[in-house]
């Protein structure tokens, strides 16, 4: 049994190493403007948010719709902290306000602070909100996310947040370097490393005693409580941890798109991530990751032609005009929600055995058909 487990671990390790190796190879061979990098980076970032949301919705059974708000906090914290002091004091970004903060931090400190700020807010928001049940909880968290957004845009906080205006020129993906040098850090690899570490931590959490307690709460609150699991403390823990990683992914998103603005973090963003979680399978980490990459690849790359006149070699500018991609996309989503409600992975994880048996099943059926 232990050997089996070890083999499994080795396989996982090899697979992950292969993925990272591939990313590194791509990074050094393809031209840096290739759309593949957009897909890889954004896909990885969305994986992290989706996994963090899955931790709440899938593993703890808390239907929370506040993810966009915590991403916003992370993105703003990171942008404000890592923006060079010289930029803050110039008029380039803080045009209508005098910047309040006169120091700047490194990338790593910025990322961790982004997570921490989101977590601190989550802690205080969780105190009242986590006593609510199912859809009331969903609506209350959604409301808090909207309030966070409104407060971020408030004039009075302008010296900190630059009001409702864009933040930019912080340490984004084009401005990160290898430690103690000026050599630029390969951006896609950077995103993959950060996201990888975060997801690894979440996986370790889910497989720890605390993770079992979360799942117990999801399965049956009353029974979990009767087994001595403090509902409120564990819900709060899950909420805070999930928000911590949502904060980090918000920071990564800011780094990815070079600019950040509160306006972007609307409820629609949360819905988008929720749909990714559902497509991947509620309660499956690997499902969330696969779904994120698929979702981003479809929307940023493969279906782009639907918006730009030509798709699959068919040129029909009247049909394939702006907005058609999103229409097709939402139809696909509805099909998945209605007919494949368990998503790609259900609540299972991707493993060598599953992939093998999947293809075996295929072949087997083909033979039968003959």
């Amino acid at each position, binding site marked *: 049994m232990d050997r089996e487990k070890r083999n499994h671990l080795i396989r996982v390790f090899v697979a992950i190493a292969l993925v990272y190796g591939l990313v590194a190879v791509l990074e050094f061979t393809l031209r840096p403007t290739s759309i593949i990098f957009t897909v890889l980076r954004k896909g990885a970032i969305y994986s992290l948010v989706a996994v963090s949301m899955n931790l709440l919705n899938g593993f703890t059974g808390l239907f929370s719709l506040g993810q966009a708000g915590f991403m916003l906090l992370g993105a703003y914290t990171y942008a404000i902290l890592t923006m060079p002091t010289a930029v803050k004091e110039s008029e380039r970004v803080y045009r209508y306000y005098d910047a309040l903060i006169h120091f700047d931090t490194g990338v790593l400190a910025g990322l961790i602070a982004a997570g921490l700020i989101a977590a601190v807010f989550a802690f205080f928001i969780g105190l009242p909100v986590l006593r609510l049940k199912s859809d009331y909880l969903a609506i209350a968290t959604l409301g808090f996310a909207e309030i966070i957004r409104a407060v971020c845009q408030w004039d009075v906080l302008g010296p900190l947040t630059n009001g409702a205006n864009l933040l930019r020129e912080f340490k984004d993906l084009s401005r990160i370097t290898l430690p103690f040098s000026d050599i630029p850090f390969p951006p896609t690899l950077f995103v993959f490393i950060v996201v990888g570490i975060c997801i690894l931590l979440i996986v370790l959490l889910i497989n720890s005693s605390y993770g079992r307690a979360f799942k117990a709460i999801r399965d049956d609150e009353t029974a979990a409580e009767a087994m001595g699991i403090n509902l409120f403390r564990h819900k709060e823990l899950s909420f805070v941890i999930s928000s911590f990683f949502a904060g980090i992914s918000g920071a990564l998103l800011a780094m990815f798109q070079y600019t950040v603005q509160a306006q972007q973090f609307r409820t629609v963003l949360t819905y988008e991530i929720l749909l990714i979680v559902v497509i991947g399978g509620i309660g499956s980490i690997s499902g969330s990751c696969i779904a994120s990459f698929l979702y981003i690849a479809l929307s940023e790359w493969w279906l782009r032609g639907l918006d730009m006149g030509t798709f699959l070699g068919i040129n029909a500018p009247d049909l394939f005009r702006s907005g058609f991609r999103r229409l097709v996309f939402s139809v696909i989503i509805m099909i998945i929600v209605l007919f*494949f409600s368990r998503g790609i992975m259900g609540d299972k994880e991707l493993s060598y055995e599953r992939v093998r048996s999947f293809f075996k099943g295929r072949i087997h059926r083909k033979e039968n058909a003959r």
Partner: protein
Amino acid sequence: MRKKMLLLFVVLLASIAVFAGGSKENDSTVVKIGVFEPASGDNGAGGKQETLGIQYANAVTPTVMVGDTEYTVELVIADNESSNDRAASAAATLINAGSSVVLGSYGSGVSIAGSDTFRVAGVPVIGITCTNPQVTEGNSHYFRICYLDPFQGTVLANYAYNTLSARKVYCLAKLGDDYSGGLVNYFVQQFTALGGEVVSETFPEGNSDFTSYIANAKNSGCEVFFSPVSTEAAQLIINQADSQGLAMPILAGDTWDSNVILQAALGKNVDITVTTFYPEGADPEFDASFKEWVNADSTRLSNNGGDDTISAVTAMGYDAYYFALQAIQNAGSTDPADIMEALWATEIDGVTGHIALDQVNGDAIRNTVYVKHANTETGGWDALPAVVVD
């Protein structure tokens, strides 16, 4: 079973899509110009009109000489959806399609938001009507052929103070919108410097109820309503100003120079004055041939807002295209880096006037602001004397 079907479905979709994404012709005598404009969202109407100008110019002059070779110009159009968070991904699409130079965008916010994506890729961009200073400031890849908001805001403030004799102005901007926020800011600076007083408010994204803002303007004793917002919000403001009996003049910037505004104001009791880049009639030849081109196709007509009024942004788009062609010609190359280098020294005589760039930020050197007044009976613009500042 179902799950397998789903996986199969996804794989199928992925494979056809890879095929779709992968098939790109690489013609060596084609130069691609990216059009980074909104076709939907708040600024969709304006973006489409600006794009029309570019398309018309492309229809008139579809080739460019690079060195001794004649290249065909292909426009690559990506919709940035008037949304700052979609800007980066639309920009990436244009870069990935191999654009040598990019034109746009209508709306300063999206231009700023997409800017860094172009910077990292080393692709030069020519801003057409994005008037916020931050677009070109501190970078060497973003240029622009229009005047800037500090200039426009000053002209507007002077107009309000001197011509309209207003001493208290109500300013309404959209929250988080760099264009309206910036313009209001410069307006306020100049207007208070002149000794006037302002009441300033913002409305949030998705707001459609302007009655309270209009009531605020009336109740606070303002004499002019300054609201340089998107045409979408403008329609609502005009409508509700009419029904609430807002008696004061409404003043706005270049975005309002659109037939959307004229249609909304037609037959209403409103007094609208706007500043802009180009008054219809300044170049009759261009006007006539453009109208003919627009009327020839129903899609073009609907993209122009349903009639053949020429918006200033269309004329600007037309000029931007020629400016880009000139830069390509000067560079003698389709390489973005060469074009970027050549852009600094590029000059043309366009329908909107002579265009040359300053050597600090790559902004156009312009000194004329045209002023128009909406005629609510004919549904056209009445030209007022242009303001020239030396």
